[in-house]
């Protein structure tokens, strides 16, 4: 399989950056998108050129490290998937594939396709945890949690923090990510004692970072690899109001 990659190259955060086109031959349609980039990088090494920097880790769709904008979509043309779970068979032979890093002021480019997502870490630092000691894993069953709550919580706990929600949002809003984290912890008994402070602190940090407002376009829930519902943002808003009124 042969394709033309048009990839964003940028040496450093202060470098201006530009697109560079690479003709890549010898690809297998069953290769993952990241394997295709590996294949291209091997060729670049042999040509003594700088390899393309991109984030990746588990390559199983669960770590949230990979993530690039492919042909105008976060994580590529399919809904609810990660870049590593995208395969070359999703593209047409000989066509141009445009690859860009996440574009958001809150996610500055470090190098090529790698962006700095530490703004997410700083939101987590402001309450995305519980400070109560809940014992070891085996003691988890000592605190009963209803099945419906457990299911709902699992849906949001699935967030892998890849940043596709911010990347695809026309406003670079981090509302889906933040709401997933808040609704996850605030729905569980372990998270209850700090629920109001958590929602106020995490949303305040979200506002301090360079994220925009959520205008409910719904793009985030389509691109989210875990299919986290946009209704979580509405739930976060309700929790925020409750915290303001009853804290």
């Amino acid at each position, binding site marked *: 399989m042969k394709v033309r990659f048009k990839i964003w190259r940028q040496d450093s955060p202060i470098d201006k950056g530009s697109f560079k086109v690479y003709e890549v031959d010898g690809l297998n349609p069953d290769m993952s998108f990241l394997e295709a980039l590996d294949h291209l990088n091997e060729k670049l090494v042999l040509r003594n050129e700088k390899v393309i920097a991109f984030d990746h880790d588990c390559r199983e769709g669960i770590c949230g490290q990979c993530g690039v904008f492919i042909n105008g979509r976060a994580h590529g043309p399919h809904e609810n998937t990660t870049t590593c779970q995208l395969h070359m068979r999703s593209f047409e032979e000989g066509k141009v594939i445009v690859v860009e890093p996440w574009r958001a002021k809150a996610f500055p480019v470090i190098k090529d396709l790698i962006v700095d997502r530490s703004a997410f870490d700083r939101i987590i630092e402001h309450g995305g945890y519980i400070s109560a000691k809940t014992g070891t894993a085996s003691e988890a069953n000592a605190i009963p949690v209803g099945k419906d709550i457990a299911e709902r919580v699992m849906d949001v706990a699935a967030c892998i923090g890849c940043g596709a929600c911010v990347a695809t949002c026309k*406003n670079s809003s981090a509302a889906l990510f933040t709401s997933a984290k808040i609704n996850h912890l605030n729905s569980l008994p372990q998270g209850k004692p700090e629920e109001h402070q958590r929602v106020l602190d995490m949303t305040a940090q979200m506002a301090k970072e360079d994220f925009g407002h959520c205008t409910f376009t719904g793009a985030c829930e389509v691109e989210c690899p875990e299919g986290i519902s946009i209704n979580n943002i509405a739930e976060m808003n309700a929790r925020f109001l409750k915290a303001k009124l009853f804290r």
Partner: protein
Amino acid sequence: MDLFFRKGVIASTGLFLCLFLIVHLSANCILLLPEDISRELYNSYSTTLRENLLIKLVAYILYLSIILHVVYALLVTIRNRKSTPIKYAVNHSNENSSWTSQNMGFIGFFILLFIVIHLANFWARIKLGMGEEVGTDALGNLDVYEVTSSLFHNIYYVSFYSLLMIPLGLHLHHGLKSAFKTLGFYHKKGLQAIAKIAVVYALIMSIGFGIIPFIVYFK
């Protein structure tokens, strides 16, 4: 100022304006009656509104709502623009979201333009007494019907008025659907119902406001 407050102002003023539009369209339906009944009813209705203290208060809330809706929408847009300084070279946002949801500010601009012209034609003449003086009808009420009817017999105005009801419908559809979420309503089935209601509401408003001028024109 937190992110929620700005969007909360836009959502709550927007919902108030949605309610206002229902009342406005109901009043416009008087124009569909035969001319003599319509004139008398329309003029006495508008006189009642102008002279009622409670309605006066609601009118001030209405002006304030429009201003706050626009000002806060601008503030939100400014922050959103700052958050996205570099655009993608290729972005197929149409594959993951509706065009309307991506362009609420752009659509809103046309509605604002319409409101300014609409107010200049009606509100400024009737309430501020600007421009040509408005006469009275047989019952001594200000002949607002005549103002409306004469404008709705101008094909350019009728076309402009009706055409701009398309962005109104689009704006109302996304606005109504999202306002509840912004204000923290997250009941899944309730939101699905609101999404359906928003379609019906937007269609009734845009078709209703858009077709009445044409009916009056051809009456």
